[in-house]
């Protein structure tokens, strides 16, 4: 063989990652684009709440229960705080806590699920049975009970929901990873003498990433709804922290007077959930290679 320098990097003529993402986005259906725009808007509100919100999160700026005006677009709540500002701050709190919860649940469930599928044996058996038991109990009731026992605090909320949610993530991670772990290319890597971290990170994880990302989106929607439900019931995020679930609870009686105030945080919850589902639907469709029925 001649050893003249071969400039192989220049051969790469395929599209770059950003070009690929752009192409994919351009072909997205309207529902997915709507979902992404909505999510981007929420994220923007959450990130820049300090600058966007006209008033402070817990600042009392006027009389209680005012109707909408040029100063307070959505009126004020039961102690005279600006509703619009609290909805904007609520985005940061609710979304932030839900994201953190899902992230932790993926750390626990994902790592244990993949580890169980690769090593098998008694650890897999024990974890799988524990998960079965946990999953047989309805999440909301279980969370209510645990929160009542552990006490109402944001960290308790995050940790309890993360653990309960990790069971679902564990199942998905274990099953998808198991179907990849039995493939010949994983055996080839073992025969090569690769260590466990390399096999997991380079051979298995890239192949199970799409369903896990989709699951992340779905779990986020569920956790977000669960947190809102718990807050509505009074055991979730505690005042004076602005949160959509508790805001609905605080203003719910206004609905009997024909005032739309409780609908505003409720709509914020609903819109984000729908948007999230739209995007996840499209992503799943895209990655699973399903074709549209003709």
């Amino acid at each position, binding site marked *: 063989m001649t050893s003249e320098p071969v400039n192989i990097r220049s*051969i*790469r*003529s395929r599209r770059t990652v950003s070009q690929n993402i752009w192409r994919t986005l351009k072909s997205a259906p309207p529902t997915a684009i709507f979902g992404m725009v909505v999510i981007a808007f929420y994220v923007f509100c959450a990130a820049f709440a300090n600058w966007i919100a006209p008033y402070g999160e817990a600042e009392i700026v006027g009389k209680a229960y005012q109707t909408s005006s040029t100063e307070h677009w959505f009126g004020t709540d039961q102690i005279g705080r600006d509703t619009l500002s609290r909805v904007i701050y609520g985005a940061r709190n609710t979304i932030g806590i839900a994201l953190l919860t899902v992230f932790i649940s993926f750390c626990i469930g994902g790592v244990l699920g993949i580890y169980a599928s690769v090593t098998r044996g008694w650890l897999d058996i024990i974890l799988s049975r524990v998960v079965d038991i946990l999953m047989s109990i309805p999440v909301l009731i279980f969370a209510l009970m645990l929160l009542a026992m552990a006490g109402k605090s944001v960290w308790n909320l995050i940790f309890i929901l993360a653990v309960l949610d990790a069971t679902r993530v564990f199942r998905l991670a274990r099953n998808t990873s198991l179907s990849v772990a039995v493939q*010949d290319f994983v*055996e080839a890597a073992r*025969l090569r003498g690769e260590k466990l971290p390399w096999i997991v990170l380079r051979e298995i994880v*890239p*192949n199970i990433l799409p369903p896990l990302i989709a699951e992340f989106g779905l779990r986020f929607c569920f956790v977000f709804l669960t947190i809102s439900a718990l807050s509505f019931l009074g055991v979730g995020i505690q005042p004076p922290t602005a949160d959509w679930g508790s805001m609905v609870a605080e203003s719910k009686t206004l609905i009997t007077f024909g005032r739309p105030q409780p609908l505003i945080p409720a709509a914020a919850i609903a819109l984000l959930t729908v948007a999230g589902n739209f995007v996840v639907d499209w992503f799943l469709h895209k990655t699973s290679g399903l*074709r549209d029925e003709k």
Partner: protein
Amino acid sequence: MRNDAEKVPARVKGTTLVDIKGLKIEGYSDDKWHPIIKGLDLKLNRGEVIGLIGESGAGKSTLGLAAMGYTKPGCRISAGSVTFDGIDLVNASQQELRKLWGSHISYVAQSASASFNPAHKLMEQVVESATNHGVMDRAAAEADAKDLFKRLQLPNPDTIGGRFPHQVSGGQLQRAMTAMAMSCRPDLIIFDEPTTALDVTTQVEVLAAMRRIVEEFDTAAIYITHDLAVVAQMAHRIMVLRYGNLVEESATRSMLKQPTQDYTKTLWSVRKLGKQESPNDDIVLRIDNVDASYSGIAKVLDNVTVRVPRGRTVAVVGESGSGKSTLARAITGLLPPSKGRINFNGKDLPARLQDRDRDTLRRIQMIYQSADTALNPRQTVRDIIGRPVEFYLGVRGAETDRRIVQLLEAIELTEDFIDRYPGEMSGGQKQRISIARALAADPELIICDEVTSALDQIVQEEILKLLMKLQKEKNLTYLFITHDIATVRAISDEIVVMYKGQVVQQGLKSQVLNPPYPPYTELLLSSVPEMDPDWLTNLLKKREAV
């Protein structure tokens, strides 16, 4: 027994059963319609058997299904007509089609195990179409099924219907499916690669049973296969297809004797690849009295002793379940033997994979049957081949790239493959990448586990030629596991015959492939179909005489 010379003309006189004219079929992918069948005519008379042959993607299954008025999801008939017994199938309603299917037209698929419902007994499934179509009542259908089982030479025809699909062997299941297809005495049966998944020894029985029953009931059949020797036994007439076009069509005997088209000739010549054996006393791998079992129950390897000489090819042959692949697992350390020694280069190999050092691992590499599952779909060729280069040889960066390009040259691919993903390559190219991954480690011994059996014949030949070239260049040793005797003839120096976990025979190719044979070798070798239309007839006669 059948005699083509007499029967073919008689059948040609029969009325036309299937008439396909100018058929075009398109498939939908990547937001476009692509042609699969590009204008084909097919005429089939009552009682006639036609063979469709061609490599994968030729459109033979699509054409076979179209003869029953069916297209796979994502496909459509864009032009042409399909007439069955005077009925226009292209424009027939689903209801009309459903009336025909099962009763007048039936289908035998490649994988019988995937076609039976594992939760029901065989009998229930075999009689289903006859009772559903109201051809006969349950009792009559069961009696008839038992008769069919007997004609298909299934063991215990009276009781075998009471078994579940997993309780019978693959060959028996394939025959049960033929019985199911026959239950309404259809006018047409479509056999879609019915014996491809079976061992040669089983294949003979299934072929004989199918041929006899088709003849007895004077059923017309479309026999789809990629195996010329098989179609030669079954069909009166052969159509060679390629890329959705007809290459050549004629009666079986004249087709075999004098194919007119170049493509057909290349198909015929594939089986003529050969290699001069050469003995060698320098033994690189020594397997002594090895036993192995999964979870300690039944022995899958029983006192196996094998010698593998350096720079040569040792073919391990045997039917499925004979322990060929388990032997590979024992050598690689995936399944530590429960007894015996494996000696490599004069040193005993640690039994467990985890106990072997990196240099030992490097020297023994493996190539798998299916490149689809053996290559990580999320890695580029650069990752797939580059990793062993970096892992074993400790090179980095530009030097790795240089090695990758050298390896691509060695497997006769251009360097622009370096950034491709496995999904962007053909089956043969993927298998070449698998070979390059093994070569990247600069090994001494490569275990090839059925590396050509998932490929088309022409591609098979290219891969075998490549392996032989590489062996010469790098003095590689191959342990070549296969069930295909033609492949064995083509590449091996020595042959190991395995049966039920034991080595029946090991020796030079000329010794093993020439008499006197031990009984199992005899059975195995005589079961390999030959390109002679009378082969099956003669074989059955010979076996009956014994």
